């Protein structure tokens, strides 16, 4: 972190300039000692500029530096003999320096020393003056507040940086995982299909049945990896939005094709688009994925009845509303927030051993955010759920292309 180095050096330049000014301003005949102190401070700052960054994080560094600065400043001002209130602000710089050390004790000790030094050395004559004593707690409080704020800000920043690094690492890891899972899966899926199609010899019905299951589950495994990767990329903000003119009816047709393997005999799936919806400027693939995820979920949690998708135009808000309604399990009110968290599913889903890991709705939520849309959930446990997506007709700028 070179930030501490820069701030320290900069602050010390200000300290040196202020000190020189004060000494010259109240200069008596000779200023050898004062001059030597200033020269030492100057030299030490030049040394700081050449020190390797690692030295700034040495345990003793802050203590030595603060001690040196308080000592030299006090000595210079004391010898100079000035005791005007102007000197106080020099000590502020010392305290600020102390608070850069990220340690509250150091800040407190620095503040106390600076305050003590100012009272006992510079104001010896009127040390019992109450105004003088009041300055001690004032110094302390200022120093502690400043130290607390800088430490807090720095910690928050390093926490955020660490979290970001972890996210980036996770995404890279998952990208590698995706590559490494796809490679063997290709052999599995390939031979399975070759066997199913009789390219490697005739099959009996039971064998074909087993191969069909292997095929389905191979692709489910692939989907799991893809979803985990997608969730991670959405979390780290590494997903770009590609705008284009999108026709909602065409998107729904694609969705119908994409979800066909989740269709069930006892569940009617119908997708309807109201006539006259204007073309929407948004990201077509993301919109398709949102709706496909919602429909897949609806089909998963509905054993009997219907899943209906209705798209309509809401002219007053200039947005397209897509409503996915099912007659399935439903979601309990207390779970309505949690289902959008990654790797979280409704309790019922776990109890029924429905396949999935709980990433579908997390992805939907994040994608809708990217498209600047809204999602509303209504549900009656045991009777079904309705997910309503609203997408603005025109997504203007491209948000979050990190």
């Amino acid at each position: 972190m070179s930030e501490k180095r820069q701030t320290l050096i900069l602050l010390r330049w200000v300290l040196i300039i202020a000190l020189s000014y004060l000494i010259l301003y109240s200069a008596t005949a000779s200023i050898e000692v004062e001059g030597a102190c200033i020269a030492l401070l100057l030299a030490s700052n030049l040394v700081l500029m050449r020190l390797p960054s690692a030295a700034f994080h040495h345990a003793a560094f802050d203590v030595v530096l603060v001690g040196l600065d308080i000592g030299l400043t006090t000595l210079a001002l004391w010898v100079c003999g000035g005791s005007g209130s102007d000197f106080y602000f020099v000590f502020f710089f010392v305290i600020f320096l102390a608070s850069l050390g990220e340690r509250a004790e150091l800040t407190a000790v620095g503040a106390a020393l600076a305050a003590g030094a100012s009272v006992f050395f510079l104001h010896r004559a009127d040390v019992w003056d109450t105004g003088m004593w009041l300055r001690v707690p004032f110094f302390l409080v200022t120093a502690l507040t400043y130290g607390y704020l800088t430490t807090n800000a720095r910690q928050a920043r390093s926490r955020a940086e660490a979290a970001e690094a972890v996210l980036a690492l996770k995404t890279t890891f998952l990208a590698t995982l995706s590559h490494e899972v796809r490679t063997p899966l290709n052999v599995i899926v390939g031979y399975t299909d070759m066997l199913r199609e009789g390219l490697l010899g005739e099959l009996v019905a039971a064998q074909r049945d087993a191969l069909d299951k292997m095929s389905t589950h191979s692709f489910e495994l692939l989907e799991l990896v893809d979803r985990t990767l997608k969730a991670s990329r959405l979390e780290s903000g590494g997903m770009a939005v590609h705008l284009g003119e999108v026709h909602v009816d065409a998107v729904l047709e694609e969705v119908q094709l994409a979800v066909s393997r989740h269709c069930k005999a006892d569940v009617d799936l119908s997708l309807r688009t109201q006539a006259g919806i204007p073309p929407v400027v948004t990201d077509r693939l993301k919109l398709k994925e949102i709706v496909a995820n919602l429909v897949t979920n609806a089909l998963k949690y509905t054993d009997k009845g219907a899943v209906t998708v209705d798209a309509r135009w809401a002219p007053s808000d200039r947005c397209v509303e897509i409503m996915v309604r099912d007659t399935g399990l439903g979601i309990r009110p207390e779970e309505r927030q949690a289902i959008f968290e990654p790797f979280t599913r409704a309790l019922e889903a776990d109890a029924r051993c429905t396949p999935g890991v709980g990433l579908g709705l997390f992805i939907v939520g994040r994608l809708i955010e990217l498209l600047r849309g809204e999602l509303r959930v209504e549900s009656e446990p045991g009777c079904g759920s309705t997910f309503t997506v609203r997408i603005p007709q025109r997504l203007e700028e491209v948000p979050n292309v990190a």
Partner: protein
Amino acid sequence: MSPRILVVEDEPDNGEYLVRLLEETGFQTLLATTAAEAIRIARRERPDLVLMDVRLAEGDGRAAARELKAAAETAAIPIVAVTALALDGDREACLAAGCDDYLSKPFRPRELLAKMRTLLGPR
């Protein structure tokens, strides 16, 4: 004569599977496991089509595709990138390198054969 396909694949089981699939469906095959070998065989044998893995243990399939497309004698050979790199932008990167088509692993044999048929044209 049946078309000759150059399979570029460094992972042995994937290579064996591709060769087997193609031979079962009436193609002749050549196999290369590194980018350099792929370029050498393509120059010498002039296959009718190349199936190019991208991330190879030795060399980069996209660079090999670019090289084949840049040389006059191999520029006309269609190349299909067949790769486990299947993230945003991987398809575009393959097409930009000169590949004529892209297929992500795992794929269904039918998908591959359909793409190959399109590129090989009527015979």
